[in-house]
């Protein structure tokens, strides 16, 4: 489901296989344990994480079909993704998403949870599909969107036009940092960027704290959501709320008679 490789100072996390890399509980657990492994590596404060994927998709979002067949899993997936994102926000190293395929809904959110987004321009798009599939965006998703998509028109295009955003359009909108000719070139560029960052020699722990401060609003939005599972983050940042308040927003709530069908491309 996902592999973790070390290349010099770089950690390469890859969502494997030719599928949609739907963020089901198992994949989310796998990714989280990879992150735990990264944190416990002694060189981690002088490293960079690159997240990428095999195949046509970066990630097509939550496993909605699974949730339709087993409703309590919705909240579980939401809680696990929130924990993962909180983990990524506090990670003591810069993070790069090498988006080599479609990233929609929670998959787009996962890409945005990285400091840099590098993307292939020949195929694939970023897509907040929620409006098209009649889902309300959770408050913490919105918080990330507001932090990472800065211009009001771009925010509107992401959330309210449900635009399918190619790499070059993403560049225009300030969501994507650079675009590349193919999946291979994107990963290569991510590696190059990673190595450049490592050369600069910044302290990862300081970096992680800075990022938490920058994305404080997102951490608060995550912290104020009720968790169905034990979604506690690894690091002990003071921005993490220890009390869970009842959420005024819900990730999504399905009625039993939903029919499963994956997002169409």
């Amino acid at each position, binding site marked *: 489901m996902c592999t973790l490789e070390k290349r010099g100072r770089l950690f390469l996390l890859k969502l494997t296989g030719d599928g949609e890399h739907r963020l089901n509980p198992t994949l989310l657990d796998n990714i989280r344990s990879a992150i735990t492994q990264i944190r416990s590596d002694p060189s981690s404060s002088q490293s960079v994480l690159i997240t990428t994927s095999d195949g046509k998709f970066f990630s097509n979002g939550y496993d*909605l*079909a699974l949730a*339709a067949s087993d409703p309590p899993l919705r909240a579980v997936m939401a809680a696990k993704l929130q924990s993962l994102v909180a983990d990524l926000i506090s990670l003591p190293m810069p993070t790069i998403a090498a988006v080599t395929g479609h990233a929609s809904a929670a998959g787009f959110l996962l890409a945005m949870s990285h400091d840099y987004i590098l993307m292939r321009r020949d195929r694939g798009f970023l897509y907040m599909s*929620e*409006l*098209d*599939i*009649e*889902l*309300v*965006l959770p*408050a913490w998703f*919105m918080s990330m*969107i*507001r932090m990472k998509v*800065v*211009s*009001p*028109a771009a*925010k*509107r295009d992401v*959330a*309210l*036009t*449900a635009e399918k955003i190619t790499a070059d359009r993403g560049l225009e909108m300030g969501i994507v940092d650079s675009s590349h000719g193919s999946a291979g070139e994107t990963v290569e560029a991510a590696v190059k960027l990673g190595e450049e960052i490592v050369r600069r020699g910044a302290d990862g722990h300081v970096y992680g704290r800075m990022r938490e401060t920058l994305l404080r609003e997102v951490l608060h939005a995550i912290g104020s959501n009720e968790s169905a599972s034990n979604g506690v983050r690894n690091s002990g940042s003071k921005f993490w709320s220890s009390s869970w308040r009842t959420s*005024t*927003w*819900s990730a*999504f*709530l*399905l*009625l039993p008679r*939903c*029919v*499963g*069908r*994956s997002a169409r491309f």
Partner: protein
Amino acid sequence: MCTLEKRGNIFLLTLTGDNEHRFHPDAIATILSLLGQAKSQANRGSVLITTGHGKFFSNGFDLAWAQSSGSLAGAAERLHQMVESFKPVVAALLDLPMPTIAALNGHAAAAGLMLALSHDYVYMRRDRGVLYMSEVDIGLSMPDYFAAMIRSKIGTSAARREVLLSGKKIRGEEAVALGIVDSAAHDSAEGVVEATVGLAEKLAAKKWKGDVYASIRKSLYPELCEILGLKATIFATPKL
């Protein structure tokens, strides 16, 4: 003073008459009532376009009516009345269960610019018409929801300064450059309306569920919604 027509999927709200379309309490009440009508007739694929006749989209609150009260206190009270009664208009637009487009036929100043910015998309003319926050020039302070609207819809510090602090009359091309409007490509009111109809038809074809749309829209602007007392709905059934 204000009409609501339905053309297929499109609700067309027009500020009628060749005048400044000032927001007197009666005009405000009419607009609010027409927005209520549009909301009650909303369907999947509905879209609202708001436009005006003549040289002005709207020149803001009816300050002459405020001043005609005869006393300073009376004028202040009338102004306050307009500020308070306009808030629900902005709220109604943010809450409207359909995409909204402002087709600026002419000048949009102060509360008139607020009306425009309350829409999801704003198109203006290239050749005529300016955006103008007159408050700094006429010595009026800003209602809290006006400032929140500016912060929500105008992204850069430089643009906000130009709009709020410079007393500048911003023409189409500059408005696009500052990121305030989406388009200023047409040299006539008819051209702008036609362009907005084109956009409306594209959006209508998505057949979005209105309450989901409104909920997502409100979650984009939490500060403004808080000031307006708007809450987002919580649950939605995903179409898998």
